[in-house]
């Protein structure tokens, strides 16, 4: 496509505007540089990043093959926690939002209670409550951990890859349940806002076209609702990934817990924590990019 030629004055305005942008970016970079230099002066710290490599991968003494060491193990656990808690949280959120908008009064009330209890109490309390009551008292009654210890090897291996090592599955599940409930409560409100943002006229138009109730919801309301709340949903997903670090409090060996183990053992506090921050950034940024793409695609649709 041929762009119309800009008149000279507009071009000059444009270039001065660009100069301003360049200035702002240079300024920000300089500020960051000063901060880094200052931090180095104040810290008086001898940086030694070799500790990262050591605790990232190790070589198996028997076979000589590479395998994940503490930091990478923690990273994988965080990914598992995040993936499952987002999946379950979305299911919980979708069900509760559906109940809030379309449910009968008792269900609406229950759903509202759930959201308010989870949202208005400190997550740490929820984590400890689930850990000490559910994981320590109720899970053993279910006997899952005991069943798994006598389960065939392939099942144990699968559980270890998909969830957590079978002999620590109760703790993992209680941490996961907590993260899923937390995410679920916030996602409920986001999805509710989405569903309620669709004007009634849309539903009525759907009916006028001869669609039935479920079809109207699936074809007319839902796509628009989700599209409207996509940015908020992305924010909540990113928060949920970072919230997974809360379960370090109950010693679930995810990234934050492993990082504190390594930093305590080696006294390489800054190196290890900065690296871990970088790992969290990578995951969250990837999610951010993914949602950005989704948003653009659905806007076109």
């Amino acid at each position: 496509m041929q762009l119309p030629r800009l008149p000279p004055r507009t071009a000059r305005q444009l270039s001065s505007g660009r100069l301003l942008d360049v200035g702002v970016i240079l300024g920000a970079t300089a500020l960051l540089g000063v901060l880094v230099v200052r931090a180095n002066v104040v810290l008086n710290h001898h940086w030694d990043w070799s500790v990262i490599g050591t605790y990232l991968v190790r070589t198996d003494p028997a076979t000589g093959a590479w395998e994940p060491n503490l930091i990478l193990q923690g990273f994988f656990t965080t990914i598992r926690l995040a993936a499952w808690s987002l999946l379950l949280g979305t299911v919980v959120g979708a069900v509760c939002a559906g109940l809030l908008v379309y449910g009968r009064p008792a269900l609406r009330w229950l759903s509202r209670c759930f959201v308010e209890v989870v949202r208005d109490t400190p997550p740490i309390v929820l984590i400890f409550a689930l850990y000490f009551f559910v994981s320590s008292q109720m899970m053993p009654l279910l006997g899952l951990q005991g069943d798994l210890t006598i389960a065939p090897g392939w099942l144990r291996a699968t559980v270890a890859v998909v969830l957590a090592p079978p002999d620590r599955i109760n703790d993992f599940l209680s941490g996961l349940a907590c993260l899923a409930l937390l995410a679920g409560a916030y996602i409920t409100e986001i999805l509710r806002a989405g569903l309620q943002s669709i004007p009634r006229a849309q539903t009525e138009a759907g009916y006028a076209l001869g669609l039935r109730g479920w079809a109207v919801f699936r074809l007319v309301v839902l796509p628009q609702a989700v599209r409207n709340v996509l940015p908020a949903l992305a924010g909540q997903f990113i928060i949920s990934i970072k919230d997974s670090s809360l379960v370090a409090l109950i010693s679930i060996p995810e990234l934050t817990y492993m990082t504190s183990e390594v930093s305590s053992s080696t006294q390489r506090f800054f190196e290890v924590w900065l690296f871990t921050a970088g790992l969290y950034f990578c995951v969250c940024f990837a999610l951010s990019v993914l949602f950005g793409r989704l948003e653009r695609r659905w806007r076109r649709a």
Partner: protein
Amino acid sequence: MLIRRGVMTLACALLLFTLPARAQPAQGSTIDTIVKRGTMMVGMATFVPWAMRDKDGKLIGFEVDVATKLAADLGVKLDLVPTAWDGIIPALLAGKFDVIIGGMTITTKRNLTVNFSVPYDYAGSSLAVSTSLQNGFKLDALNSPNVTIACRRGTTACSNAAEYFPKATLRQFDDEAAIVQEVLNGNATAFAASEPLPSRSAAQNPSKLFTPLSQEQELNRLPAGMAVRKGDVDTLNVLDNWIAANSKFLRARRHYWFETQDWRSAVGG
């Protein structure tokens, strides 16, 4: 109708929460459970050199040696359960593991919630102070509102610091690395911790830190015991007698981990 359904739901929820209390009777002693299970589960937190991670990510340290020998003598496998120090006693009470072997000093307050074996080790809490105070240093200088002392939350060193220097500000962290760094950065004047951390940090950063107390005049020296759930005489008896019978082994291991640096290359950083 609706109200009744709500009440029923509530009742079910309540029942679920009260059920476990009844479903967990006193099932004999922990030591029986350990032998029957064939595995001893030991809770410990990372404290150099009691328990820490070597380059392969495995737990090593004084406590690991103690737990390994104890399990071997009992004829069971050992399952080490790394646990955040902050919640280690609740985790023991909740049955997450059988015993804490984690450099836990015997204090009266802790003794109200758990039972301790006879001491198998001791931990002395001491100080490392910023060299800015080194000229004509007196211990009293730390008892001032201008002083900030860093320590690890829930440790005996923390309560000792609060006791001896009531006017100073106490800043508590969740791990050891942070309290050392806080003094190195100049945000705190001193840190209080179990030896050998203070003397080792001072040796590593002679221009920044010094230890005002020699090993003989620590802030406090407290016995360390293995902690088990209360009211379990059988388990305590086994532990006590094991400790009495292994004094030579314990001394040798203490020498290796606390007085030599031979293990240092096993840990990265």
